[in-house]
């Protein structure tokens, strides 16, 4: 059996987790991550990494639920293991609050997280402008720790990391047999997909170690996520905005909104501003195809467009992508058995 050479474009949470899943599923393969940015400079690094799914309008709910459950279970075992700190995963409890009663009072993921229940009147008193809420325990996956940990796992299985900006997927041929496209927002140019567009998010990272609960406004615009090394305050959802520089006015606004929810934040210090562009898409593109040019064939698996929900569904989504890659590998290894495209 020849070693299949696989290139994964993109080193965010999707690229790295897909690579790890492939290494576990496909025998006799070499994996190289090719990316212009690596942690801590990827989009994933800006995300707080809280596991609360974002709904994709064009992906079936059952699929999203499966991805979320698989991700939750995977990170749950990590969180209970001695590796939890090295992987940057820990449990976090808190509240999601609403200014008016939502049409969907119990979200599709309620039975995946732990201890999901509606907030009591006494609990809601803490948030005077809110009338309804959910209380539950979920996981936080600190990307600035998780991504290096995934890189380490990959390297220990012989994976390689290559810093290079790819302008055309054909650059990877003939060095590689299969390309896995996890380029996130980069796919807009790389594979000319106009369905993927940025949703700009600005956050503040502050020191407030006394906070032990997350607080999230149901709209997703304002949130407080305490982590192991800092608390993330957010945020913004600016569609079509490509600006990667933090805006001072926006920072003041985020801080003010968060202090309204949690007044003790007035004592927070050491504020860092960060910006990330969520790779928004109506559905996650998880698809294999074979590109043809001048008689050359290049199998490619697309795996991008996770918007706000990347960390929440990454593992389940990566497992599915790895299965698609496995099918491509089988097709390569037994060409006589493959059916027509």
């Amino acid at each position, binding site marked *: 059996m020849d070693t299949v050479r696989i290139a994964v474009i993109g080193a965010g949470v999707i690229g790295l987790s897909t690579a790890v899943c492939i290494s576990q599923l496909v025998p006799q393969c070499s994996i190289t991550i090719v990316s212009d940015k690596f942690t801590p400079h990827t989009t994933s690094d800006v995300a707080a990494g809280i596991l609360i799914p974002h709904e994709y309008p064009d992906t079936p709910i059952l699929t999203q639920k499966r991805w979320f459950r698989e991700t939750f279970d995977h990170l749950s075992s990590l969180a*209970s*293991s*001695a590796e*939890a*700190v*090295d992987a940057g995963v*820990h*449990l*976090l*409890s808190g509240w999601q609050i609403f200014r008016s009663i939502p049409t969907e009072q119990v979200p599709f993921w309620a039975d995946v997280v732990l*201890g999901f229940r509606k907030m009591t009147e006494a*609990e809601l008193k803490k948030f005077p402008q809110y009338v309804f809420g959910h*209380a539950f*325990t979920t996981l936080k996956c600190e990307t600035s720790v998780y991504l290096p940990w995934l890189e380490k796992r990959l390297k220990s299985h012989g994976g390689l990391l290559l810093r290079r900006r790819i302008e055309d997927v054909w650059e990877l041929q003939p060095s590689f047999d299969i390309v896995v496209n996890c380029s996130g927002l980069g796919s807009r140019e790389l594979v000319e997909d106009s369905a993927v567009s940025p949703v700009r998010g600005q956050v503040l990272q502050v020191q407030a*170690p*006394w906070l*032990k*609960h997350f607080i999230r406004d149901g709209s997703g615009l304002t949130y407080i996520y*305490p*982590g*192991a*090394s800092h608390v993330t305050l957010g945020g913004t959802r600016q569609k079509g905005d490509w600006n990667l520089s933090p805006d001072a006015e926006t920072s003041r606004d985020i801080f003010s909104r968060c202090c309204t929810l949690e007044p003790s934040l007035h004592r927070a210090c050491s504020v860092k501003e960060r910006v990330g562009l969520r790779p928004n898409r109506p559905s996650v593109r998880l698809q294999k195809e074979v590109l043809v040019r001048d008689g050359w064939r290049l199998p490619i698996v697309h795996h991008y467009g996770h918007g706000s929900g990347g960390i929440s569904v990454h593992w389940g989504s990566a497992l599915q992508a790895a299965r698609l890659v496995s099918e491509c590998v089988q097709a390569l290894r037994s060409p006589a058995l493959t059916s027509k495209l």
Partner: protein
Amino acid sequence: MRVVLIGAGVIGLSTALCIYERYHSALQPLELKIYAERFTPLTTTDVAAGLWQPYLSGPSTPQEIYGWFNTSLIIEGKRYLEWLTERLTEKGVKFFQRKVESLEEVARGGADVIINCTGVWAGALQPDPLLQPGRGQIIKVDAPWIKHFVLTHDPKSGIYTSPYIIPGMQAVTLGGIFQLGNWSEINSSQDHDTIWKGCCRLEPTLKNARTAGEYTGFRPVRPQIRLERERLRVGSAKAEVIHNYGHGGYGLTIHWGCALEAAKLFGKILEEKELSWMPPSHL
């Protein structure tokens, strides 16, 4: 009105604040002095993790294995005592570092009311066979990824003898030691191992945690809190005493309610004194 309060742990300082807030305007002048041998960070309160959790009362079936989840409050002893001290200082309450040998000494010094919040050492001022030290030892570690407290209970061995993990504002407190009658103020390496093994079994990630300190404290254990008045008469000196001690391992949990109760007793004393000052024709 000269009031001397003995003790600067959570019971002492909260009782002082409660009494001051309720009576300083009614009593001009109210002179409130706090005498204590130890101040924060050397009080028993400073060692407590500060989790608000009333005692489990009643036996539980040994066969049962269950758990519950609740959101509670932490009152961090050290920070809270600092805050109480700031509030009291603002109000003009004076602090004196001194070891009081007897209640009589304070009465002879001119105090009208003495408030006894001496905790586990109350027996030195007045013998109390019901009061005993419930020695505890804790390890403080840096483990900022831990955002939940974990308390375990072993009904066979009793309260606080089973491992617990309580994250605080800066550090995480690990404990599980309760030794009745043990006055040793030295950290025991055997207790250290007991705590460490028990807590690591509950939370394996603790192996990544850096130790920030290890402390011993004596819970002022008593079958019930002594919260009552006593009239003191020593020769020519007389004083009203309010006792407020013996809060075991739940002092922070219950302190404000007790302070309010002590303030009520103080109010009663004031009423009685007023009656004795009223001219006879008003009786």
